[in-house]
């Protein structure tokens, strides 16, 4: 019988270092914008960041800004502003919240870091591996600022990554170089590119190991920790700082595993989370799962920044492969096999799918996957209706009851 009890999530010591790292990241962007050098490139979360760093840009990730708008609960107030100028409430709420915030002249960076506005882009670089919305999102700013918009169009619904995918993607990435040279004023340097890719590879290997710590019983970290600690892998990959950060975090988690220290005392249930976080409700959800002694030990979302294929020997090709092997661009059969493996390795006893209203690409519950998973693995599954940022699509009580009822179901099976 599940009952609510108050517990506290354990603090990860490395977090204090990360706050400084992120402050440094945003301050560098702000400084570059004010001084006009180095040039600022906007990049989608799984865009060709390594190439941009190699070309000497400071790199800004609007999806990270979208998540900040969600986490600070500013998003729901500014989304209607974008809706009013023609951006539908049914499209990506990162896009609508970011555009809405821009139109209103607001950013969560002000409160967090004292930065008055987002850094204006000198070039906008997208990869449609996430969705088509990123292209439309960047196109808004391209029109607004009259700056170049370039991108990579990734193949979608891929069963197996084929050579022709890699050839095509690699050529698309290479085709960006002349434009990036022109905007940055720097010549492309292959050695520098290899060096950056090497740092990204090191970062991603460490990030994978961080996430794999969650397989330990009890798990030393939660999904809610991972959504915080993934930040360097997202916004600082390709830089030494990200590598250094995970070299700090990983031993702390390994020490927890060695000593059997649980992120959630008395861990009773282990959940796999598929889909986007509900940024504006992370704290509430974390508290609820803690009180139910349930740990979300693995997720598709946090795994999205694992890029095993990076290889400095073949930078363009391996980058093309790494950004095409992603879960999000794969077909249902690949996704199911991928999730099955993580579920098995992490001793998961229930799966929660978040059906994010405005993020169809990251919502895997819409084509019968939960039912098939339930049949195949015999695991209880739950679909939560919500959204990454638009809390108008979220029902507090429905969600709370669904989660509580789900844990009661898991408890019944123990």
């Amino acid at each position, binding site marked *: *019988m599940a009952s609510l009890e108050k517990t506290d999530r354990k603090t990860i010591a490395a977090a204090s270092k990360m706050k400084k790292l992120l402050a440094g990241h945003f301050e560098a962007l702000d400084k570059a914008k004010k001084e006009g050098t180095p040039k600022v490139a906007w990049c989608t979360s799984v865009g060709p960041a390594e190439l941009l760093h190699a070309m000497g840009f400071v790199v800004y990730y609007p999806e990270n800004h979208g998540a900040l708008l969600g986490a600070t609960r500013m998003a729901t107030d500014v989304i209607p502003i974008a809706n009013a100028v023609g951006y539908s409430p049914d499209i990506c709420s990162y896009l609508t919240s970011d555009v809405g915030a821009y139109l209103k002249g607001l950013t969560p960076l002000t409160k967090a870091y004292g930065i008055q506005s987002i850094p204006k882009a000198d070039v906008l670089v997208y990869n449609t591996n996430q969705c088509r919305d990123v292209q439309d999102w960047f196109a808004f700013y391209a029109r607004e600022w009259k700056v170049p918009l370039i991108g990579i169009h990734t193949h979608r619904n891929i069963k197996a990554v084929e050579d022709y995918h890699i050839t095509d993607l690699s050529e698309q990435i290479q085709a960006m170089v002349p434009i990036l040279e022109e905007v940055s004023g720097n010549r492309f340097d292959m050695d520098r590119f290899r060096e950056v890719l090497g740092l990204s590879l090191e970062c991603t290997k460490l990030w994978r190991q961080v996430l794999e710590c969650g397989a330990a019983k009890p798990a030393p970290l939660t999904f809610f920790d991972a959504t915080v600690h993934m930040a360097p892998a997202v916004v600082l990959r390709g830089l030494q700082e990200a590598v250094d950060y995970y070299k700090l975090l990983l031993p702390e988690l390994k020490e927890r595993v060695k000593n059997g220290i649980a992120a959630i005392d008395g861990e009773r249930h282990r959940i796999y989370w598929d889909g986007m976080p509900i940024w504006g409700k992370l704290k509430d959800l974390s508290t609820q799962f803690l009180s139910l002694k349930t740990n979300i030990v693995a997720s598709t979302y946090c795994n999205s920044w694992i890029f095993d294929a990076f290889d400095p020997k073949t930078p363009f090709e391996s980058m093309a492969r790494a950004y095409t092997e992603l879960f999000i661009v794969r077909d249902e059969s690949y996704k199911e096999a991928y999730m099955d493996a993580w579920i098995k390795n992490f001793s998961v006893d229930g799966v929660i799918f978040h059906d994010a209203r405005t993020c169809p690409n990251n919502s895997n519950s819409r084509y019968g996957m939960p039912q098939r998973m339930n049949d195949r693995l015999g695991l209880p599954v739950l679909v939560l209706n919500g959204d990454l940022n638009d809390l108008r699509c979220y029902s507090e009580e429905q969600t709370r*009851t669904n989660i509580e009822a789900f844990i*009661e*179901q898991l408890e019944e099976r123990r």
Partner: protein
Amino acid sequence: MHNLAGGVDVGSCTTKAVIIDCEHRIVASHVTYSGTDFECASRETWDKCLKAGGITQSEVGRVVSTGYGRNSVPFASVHLTEISCHGRGCLHFLPGPITVVDIGGQDNKIIKLDERGLRVSFKMNRKCAAGTGAFLEEMALRLRLPIEKLDDLARTADGEVPLGSYCTVFSATEVLEKIKAGHPIDRIVRGLFRSVVKRVLEMDTLTDTVVLTGGVIEHNHFLADLIREHTSTPVRIPPHPQIIGALGAALYALEVE
């Protein structure tokens, strides 16, 4: 050891209380409107339930609360979701495997239990209240009809006006259009009932014996007839479908006791 146990189901619309004896028999029950103060509603309903059974508080052991306001019942020692309690309440009358369909004031639930009575799956309606009691209440208001008349009107209608929308607000507009077009009210009401059934059928498949619960079913048995038109599995209504959640909570309370 007490001989009695209680369950309180604080729903969005009504609050239900049930007291059972150690033989699992219902010895008292009571239903009131929840209003806006759930704690007050739970106390009032519970006190009236005690009074209805001629029972004193000291005779009752544990009380389990459930429903939307389950956390607002200060005299409950444990709270459980209505998903668990509706399932448990239905198993009191019928063995598994069963599919429980609860049509509540603001949400619907489909709960599947296996032959051992263990839950296999559950689904609640999305954030939208289409197909719930709130939908019928809104439509009764639009049609200027007392809500308790809907069941008879739907049952005795000699036809049905189909309604296409699943949004409550759009349905209201559609109903007004149908009235303007001269369709008889009773046929429109049957169309509204059909709309509720369609919303339920969209949520999940109906497998095994279907057990209908909730206040909407308590007062609108004709919905069961309509559901039977859509499924070949038996469709049953347990005694007192509105208090099944509270009964389930009382049964859990007795188990803990």
